[in-house]
Structures are given as structure tokens and as C-alpha cells.
């Protein structure tokens, strides 16, 4: 119990509560339900992407191409919509395309054995370049999109827009997948100890491939949501957003070395960044501060994490108190 109260997730929760309370003290309007719902809705795309990125990082890889994947699928979704394809087909198509783009990353990591940072550094420029090749750099604007296409993410159900429900659904599904399915536990096993994973019958490369596929599919979903919500598609949609995604993971305690972290931490990381982003205009600070603040948050998060996990030396001298690990069952 004590461990649960001092865990990383708990510390991050305290930080979020303290920060929100501080803001609310001066600007009570920030914590009205509608304002909080707004903040959540604005953070929804980040949350969906972070789930995918978290899985990739758990397997000791990194996906820098998420924002480019998002932009490409978003553009394709807008073009399909423009060609008169019904929305019921556009969304699955966006997800499928995202999954395929993720599979390309995954195959290069799994089958060719290129480090993921190199692969996704390459594909992030390639995917954005492909948007340019498809459109010649032209924008797809609001008036070129069908109403149904634009309406879905804003559609309110039970008081929340569909955008938020999308994020909630993804979080719920992956909370189960990560803890209760073989694949979910395999992500931890592969990142935690690749050698041992092989002996446990887990194919490390194939699991990494699955991680990239999921990350791509989720980016595909966000591609549609993003483009329809902002009602515009162009080459540089969500430019640099991959860094926010990685930042949220780091703040949420996902270890870059693989194998450590969870959905709860990742989402807390998103909420932390989301609150900063939405609170700045409220408290009257220029949005130009946001970048420096999230940068500082990343550095602090990784430093705190490292201090918590610092090796303390082997315990050889007879301890006065038996270590907690020796917890004996009655």
C-alpha cells in the first residue's frame, strides 16, 4: 500500500492535482466540468497516439513516424471523402492504411534488422513526402469535405464529443489488452528480457512488428479524427507532434530501455501535458511558453525516474530487517 502511494504514477497524479489546484485557485473557471471536458477532448488525439507509442517503446523500439503516419492517413481519408466514399468505409480505410504504414516500419525492424530509430526517421520523411506527391502540396480545405466527415468527431454523445469517446474506447481496450492478453504481456517480456522471451516461446521480432502495426493503426484512426476535427489536411499536419507523443510517454514513466510502464502512466503523462497546454491561455501566459515547459517536464521526469531506480548496491551484509521480498506466505 505504501508502495502504491509513492509509486511513479502516484507522484505524477499528485503533480497533476497540485498543478490543477494551483490554476483553479486563481482561475476557478478552469475546473468547470465543461472546461475539463474540453481539455480532455483536446488531449484525446495525444492519448490515442501515446498508447501506440507506449507499446512500441515497451518492446525497446521507438516510432518517430507516428505524426507523419497520422498526416498521410488523414490526407487519404480527406481525399477518399472528397471522392464520395461513405464515412463508414473511410474510417476503416484510414485505420487499415495506418496499420500498413506501421507494418512497413515493423517489417524493416523485424525482417531486415534495422534499428527502429533509423527506420522511423526515414519513414517519417518518406510518409510526409508521399502526401506531397499525392497532392502536389495542395491543401484539402473544409469546403471540400463532406458534412458527415466533419461532424463525427464533434458529435456529442452523453455529453462528450465522439473524439473523447474514441480516446476512452482505445484506453479501455488497451488497458485490457496490456494486462490480460498474451500479446499484451509479450510486449513487456520482449522489452524486459529479449533472450528470455525467446525461451518462453515469444518471437521478439514478430512482437515488435505487432507493436508497430498497432501504433500505425492508432495513428491512422487519429489521422481521420484530426483532419476532420480541424477540417483541413495538408503536408505538415501535426508536424513535430511525434515529440509530444514521446514526451508524454517519458513523463508517464515508460522506460526508453523497454519493458517498464503502463497505460495508466502514459495517460497521466498526456493529461499532464494537456493541462499545461490548455491552462496557459487561461492563466494568461503566452502559448510560446508551452514548448519550454514540456521540455523541462521531460528532463525532470527522466531525472526523477532515474533517481528512483538507482541501483543501491548488492545486499550482502546481514540486514537488520528481513527484506520485503522475502514476504513469506502463511
Amino acid at each position: 500500500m505504501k508502495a502504491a502511494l509513492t509509486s511513479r504514477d502516484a507522484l505524477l497524479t499528485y503533480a497533476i492535482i497540485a498543478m490543477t489546484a494551483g490554476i483553479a485557485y486563481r482561475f476557478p473557471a478552469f475546473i468547470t466540468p465543461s472546461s475539463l471536458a474540453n481539455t480532455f477532448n483536446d488531449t484525446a488525439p495525444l492519448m490515442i497516439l501515446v498508447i501506440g507509442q507506449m507499446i512500441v517503446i515497451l518492446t525497446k523500439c521507438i516510432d518517430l513516424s507516428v505524426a507523419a503516419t497520422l498526416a498521410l492517413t488523414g490526407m487519404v481519408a480527406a481525399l477518399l471523402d472528397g471522392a464520395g466514399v461513405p464515412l463508414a468505409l473511410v474510417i476503416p480505410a484510414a485505420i487499415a492504411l495506418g496499420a500498413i504504414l506501421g507494418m512497413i516500419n515493423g517489417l524493416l525492424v523485424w525482417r531486415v534488422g534495422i534499428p527502429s530509430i533509423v527506420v522511423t526517421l526515414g519513414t517519417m520523411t518518406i510518409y510526409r513526402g508521399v502526401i506531397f506527391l499525392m497532392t502536389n502540396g495542395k491543401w484539402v480545405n473544409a469546403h471540400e469535405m463532406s458534412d458527415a466527415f466533419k461532424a463525427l468527431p464533434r458529435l456529442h454523445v452523453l455529453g462528450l464529443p465522439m473524439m473523447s469517446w474514441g480516446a476512452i474506447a482505445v484506453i479501455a481496450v488497451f488497458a485490457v489488452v496490456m494486462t490480460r492478453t498474451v500479446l499484451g504481456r509479450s510486449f513487456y517480456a520482449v522489452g524486459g528480457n529479449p533472450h528470455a522471451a525467446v525461451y518462453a516461446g515469444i518471437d521478439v521480432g514478430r512482437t515488435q512488428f505487432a507493436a508497430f502495426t498497432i501504433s500505425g493503426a492508432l495513428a491512422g484512426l487519429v489521422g481521420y479524427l484530426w483532419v476532420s476535427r480541424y477540417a483541413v489536411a495538408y503536408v505538415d499536419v501535426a508536424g513535430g507532434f511525434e515529440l509530444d507523443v514521446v514526451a508524454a510517454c517519458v513523463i508517464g514513466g515508460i522506460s526508453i530501455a523497454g519493458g517498464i510502464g503502463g497505460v495508466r502512466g502514459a495517460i497521466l503523462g498526456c493529461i499532464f501535458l494537456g493541462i499545461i497546454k490548455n491552462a496557459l491561455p487561461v492563466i494568461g501566459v503566452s502559448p510560446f511558453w508551452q514548448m519550454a515547459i514540456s521540455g523541462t517536464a521531460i528532463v525532470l521526469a527522466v531525472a526523477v525516474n532515474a533517481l528512483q531506480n538507482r541501483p543501491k548496491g548488492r545486499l550482502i551484509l546481514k540486514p537488520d530487517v528481513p527484506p520485503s521480498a522475502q514476504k513469506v506466505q502463511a
Partner: protein
Amino acid sequence: MPTSAPVLSLRALSKSFPGVKALQDVQLDLYAGTVTALIGENGAGKSTIVKVLTGIYQPEAGEIFLDGTAVKFPSSEAAAAAGVSAIHQETVLFDELTVAENIWLGHAPKTKWGLIDVAAQRRQAAALLKSIGAKIDPDILLRELGIAQRHLVAIARALSIDARVVIMDEPTAALSHKEIQELYDLVETLKSKGKAILFISHKFDEIFRIADHYTVFRDGQFVGAGLMSEATETQLVQMMVGRAVDQIFPARVRNIGDVVFTVAGYSHPTEFADIRFSLRKGEILGFYGLVGAGRSEVMQALFGITKPSAGAVNLDGKVRVIRTTADAIAAGIVYVPEDRGRQGAIKGLPIFQNASLPSLTKTSRGGFLRLAREFALTREYTQALDLRAASLDQDIGLLSGGNQQKVVIAKWLATKPRVIILDEPTKGIDIGSKAMVHEFMAKLAAKGLAVIMVSSEIPEVLGMSDRVIVMREGRIAAELVGDAMTPEALVRAAAGLGEAA
């Protein structure tokens, strides 16, 4: 016993890697309720056979028979499904998963929705742990367990797949004396449950203690097999090395001089306390103890890897402060580490760059490299050790363990140290190189170097040392000289037993 048909047998099995024939026409039989010891030097093909049996490697030729029918293990799942399970350091080590998950990963009980049944998983894990007498909470993360407890989890995992064949690859390597006894009991339990056990070990005493059959491999080939009750140690060693080896240590020229090195009151918050000893010129001081007694930790503190919380070092009458490895080397204290692959050799770099590394300031001029000097230095110090390699710019990672060790020793001798600390210097190297290292150590002492040798092998400690310090639980338990240096005295001091009645 051997009248019954084998549960698992391998026939004419071969496996090769680029440039190496790891296994050539080998055979192996495992019987129900019987422990078969697989014996061989490093590189004999023992770990390859484990990987073939667990479906990690695919053999090029030969057959695996399970109950007399030919089978194939295309993957580790297939091997597990056939009831073959391996326990070794790598088997179960997922620090961030719970004990129960470690036991059931890959074949966890499922709910009707296809999800992992967490409750059933926990319940069954607890039952398995109880059946082997392990008092471990199935819900805690593996990272909170010590090595011995991890072994128990690994064994529980082996039982969880209802294994018929259990492979134990050096299971006692990291265990303490007491834990080894518990493991022996467990092996007996497994035998009584009718499991066929393949037991791989370097330690003869333990092979004679628990094995029923033996099979010997040499250089990837089958040499012989038989009943332990009909074998002698000399016979087995002969089969392993292909020639008679008398365990004789080099004759020492004892030329012990004045005290050069004194350690007083060295302590660390968790690892060791109140370490004090002195070392003379030309002396070999043995450090004996069980694995995990804190010997390496003391040595690493003396070498500046970790910082002691208290204590002082005196070298040649001067007090030295050692905060970093560079300080230690400058003072003339060098350390040949136990974990050669990680701490000793810089794999990926050529032999000469490894050998010249701590002496770069000597071989270079004004900070600029002089390769000719590096080659000359390397040649000077590796020649004396009879290094076997293709050339001096060969990657050290391509050498055998024994030859890597020679390069590591050469690298330290090139710094002209006053005190050399050798941590398990012959662990995991072939018998030929072992004798070479022993002989060389004797020569170093004869030349006036002060030598500290950490070793867990009693014959080595007794055969090489002038004096022995025994450590237990981070403290010095005994210091033995002359006639007091007997195997019994070492074991008693290390295990914390009183004098024999």
C-alpha cells in the same frame, strides 16, 4: 534402471555455425526418473544441445526421438508442447512481470473470453510453488526476488508445462551452499515424479552427488556415456580433455618480501564491512568464499569501481585515495574481472587496442596515438602468455574465452602494476588455458608482484595461494596459513560452521 527405453534420445545430430561445427553426430539418451549429467569443457557443445532440445536451434542432420517416435522441435512452443523444459539463467527473467506471470507466460489459463484468467493463474502458481516448497508470493514482481528464489520460479515454470524432460543448465552456478542443498532435494523430488533430467554442470562433486548416468562431449562430438556408479573422476576428466590431466599446480618459487599493500577497515553500507588485510611482495593471497560472499565487491572497491564508506589503503608506505579506476591504475592496483565478456574484453575492438588501452599515455606522444608502439607493447606482453590468434588486429570477441583472458591479463601487466587482483581467473576457460594462467600467476609472484586471487574452486585456492582469506556475508571469516589451509577449514569458514569436534 537403464533397462527401460529412453524417454528422449538424440541420434547422429549435427549443427554448425559459420566456421564452427558446434555438434557433430552426437547422441544422448534421457530416461524417466533418472538424472543424466552432460559433461564437457566449454565449447564442447553443451549449450548448443540445450538450444536444439528447446527448439531455439534447428539441427542440420540427425533425429530426436520422443518415446521412440521421431519428432521435430521447430519452435520453443513445440518443444514445450512435447514436454521439454529448460531451467537456466535465461529461462525466466522478466523483472517487470509477476511471479505468477513468469510461471505461466505463453500458456496461461484463459477465461471464456480468451483473456488471461488472472485468478486461476495466481491460484495455480501458488499451488505449484507450494509443491516444490517455495515460499514465494505469486503476486510480487520478479525483480524483488533473489537469485535462489528466481530459480525456484524457473522450476515452477518447468513443472507448469507438465514437463517430462527437465534440462538444468548449470543450475547451481549462482547459488549458495544451503541453496544448493535445497536444489538437490528438489532434483530428488523431480526424479520421484518420473521426470527425465538432463543436468549440465562443471562441478564434479555435484555430478557424483546427484547424477545416475553421464554423457561426455568433446569439441562437439560424443565421446562416451555410462553409469555414474561405474565412473571415476580421472576417467571422466580424461574423456573431457582427451588426455590424462593430473591436477598439479605449478611449482612455486617462494620469494616473499616485505608488505607492499595494506587495507584497513574497508566498509560499504550494504556490501562488506571491516575488511582488513595486508599483502607482501611476491605473495599470492587467495580469497575464498561462497558465491555472493562479497569478495568481488571488495575487490571492485579496491579498484575504484565502487566507493567504500570507510577505510584506507596503503601502498608502499603511502596512503592512497582511490576514487576512480584511473586512480587505482595510477597507484599500481589492477583488476582482472570475473565477468570477462562485459567488464574485461572490449569486444568489437582488435586485440592490440584492448591490450594498449590502460597504457595509452605511455604508447602515445602528446595525446597522439603511435600504433607501432601499441603493436610492440601488445606483442611483448601477449607473447609471454602464448596467445593464440590470427593477428594482433583481430577482434578480441572472435577469440576463445581462454585467449580473451590472456589479452586482459596482458593489458594489465603492460601497466607494470604493483598489485594485481585476479577475480575467478580461470572461470569458464578450457583446461589448457587454465594451466597456462596458473603457471603465469606463479611467475608473476616469483617476479615480485603482489597477487590477490579470488576463486571459488578449492583445489585452485589451495594449489596456488600462500595464504587464504575466507569471506562470509561481507566480512572476513577466517585467515588461513600453512597447514591450516585444508579443504575442510575453507568450507567450514565459508559456511559459518564451527570447528569440527
